[in-house]
């Protein structure tokens, strides 16, 4: 488990006509150790790009990412778990095999893999589905499997990119509860991206509000709501406060 410091991050893309397009503009914030930091911002502001930069899918053009463990910089490449918007499970592998492969990639010993697979599938409520292929699961179950995979590698940081955006609202609510509950229990450092402010209010310990593209930090807020978190009217009160800090391009995001 680690703390992430994003320092002056800048990222450009090249448009089709060759002109540069700035996505991230001197973005600085921290994801505290053992806390859920939620990044909110308007659609298309660069939230997913930020996660891609952190996980190494895109290079950073300027600035730096620092991973700290007990105030010391990690001496190795950080291990990062990722819950994607779509679960991205290998359909030809069973749920258990998908998690075991991630564990193998993370260098977990073969003897330990089976135990971890079962432990984390039990935590997300999929114990009985260890030998099931992903295409035979519902959308919510697949997302749970993706969550189990990201948590099972016991990484320094877990990234979540709008993980509940592709499921219906009732399932999303159940998944939020499970995820928040597990984050509180396991004390994982989580960076959670969403444009749903009620979700941000429920999931967060801290909130980073971004401006429109190019994204820089508009606000860094501590969530005043108590943990363990419950769905309550106060969630919507904090979401309304967030709304005043974030300019949303589209209506109905709340």
């Amino acid at each position: 488990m680690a703390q992430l410091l994003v320092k002056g991050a800048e990222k450009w893309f090249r448009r089709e006509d060759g002109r540069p397009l700035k996505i991230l503009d001197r973005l600085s914030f921290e994801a505290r150790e053992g806390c859920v930091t939620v990044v909110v911002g308007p659609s298309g502001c660069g939230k997913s790009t930020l996660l891609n930069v952190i996980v190494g899918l895109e290079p950073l053009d300027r600035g730096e990412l620092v991973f700290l463990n007990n105030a010391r910089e990690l001496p190795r490449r950080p291990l990062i778990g990722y819950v994607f918007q779509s679960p991205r499970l290998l359909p030809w592998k069973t749920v258990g095999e998908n998690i075991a492969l991630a564990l193998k990639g993370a260098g977990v010993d073969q003897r330990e893999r089976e135990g971890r697979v079962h432990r984390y599938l039990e935590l997300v409520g999929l114990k009985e589905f260890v030998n099931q292929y992903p295409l035979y699961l519902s959308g919510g179950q697949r997302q749970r499997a993706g969550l189990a995979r990201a948590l099972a590698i016991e990484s320094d940081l877990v990234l979540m990119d709008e993980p509940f955006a592709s499921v219906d609202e009732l399932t999303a609510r159940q998944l939020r509860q499970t995820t928040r509950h597990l984050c509180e229990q396991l004390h994982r450092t989580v960076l959670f991206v969403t444009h749903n402010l009620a979700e941000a209010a429920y999931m967060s310990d801290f909130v980073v509000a971004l401006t429109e593209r190019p994204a820089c930090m508009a606000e860094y807020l501590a969530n005043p709501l108590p943990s363990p978190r419950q769905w309550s009217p106060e969630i919507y009160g904090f979401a309304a406060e967030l709304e005043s800090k974030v300019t949303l391009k589209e209506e109905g995001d709340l």
Partner: protein
Amino acid sequence: MTSPSDTRAATATAQEEVAHPQGFPAGSLPIGREITGRILPPLVALATVFVLWWALYLVFPRLLPGPLSTLHEAVRLLSEGTFLFHMYQSLRRVFVGSIVAMFFSVAVGIYMGTVVMGERFFQPLVVLGLTIPGLMWSLIAVMLFGINEIAPYFAVAVTIFPMLVINIWAGVKALDKELIDMSHVFHFSPWMKISQVIVPQLVPNIFAATRYGLGLAWKVVVVVEMFGTSNGVGYQVMKAYQIFNMEAVIAWTLTFVAAMILIEYGVINLVERRLTAWRPKVEVWRR
């Protein structure tokens, strides 16, 4: 760690989300539907060919041997001790040549689909290879290597290689980028990426290429055997041709076709079904 009540709650929640019953849908159909759905259509297709052949034989009895006399000749061949030997020789050549071609085509196809320079280098060579007929390769192989086993292997491999590469290359270009990114995020090694992420996505392309390749390979082998070997089905067909025994020519052809159909249904289909068991069956036109 979680308390038992939390785990029970999560389990109950997950079970409420069940969209499909656990376990796969039964692969077998009731016997009646099995017969009408799977067995009858290919039988009807074969019977149609047989009826057309018989009709042609009735119209042109001097031009074409009858189905029954050909069948009789095929039975006679089967009862001869040398039949299995010649069949084995031809099938061995088909398979060795195909496996060599498959090995190189998977490597080159993945290279072309993932490395721009690889695509630029191999694309003109593959297009060039596609334009060269199998007959030419058969002649070149016999002239290069003489009458030995290298000639049919070489002819089969170089003839089907471009078709296989085209299929694999197309499959690699259509790979799911999201899964590749996932494998990068979770630190998959290069070998894990190839064996667990890339090759499984290429299975449909590999099977399509295998079917096409085998069909082409046996034609090339027969040609090579006609003038470049002293055994095999092609050699026997040539012998029958030289004494103008059309019944034997067709009987040898039919037995070889039957062997290839057995391989298609008995081996390739079974392996494919096993490798794609993860995929739910899609019925576009439900009955």
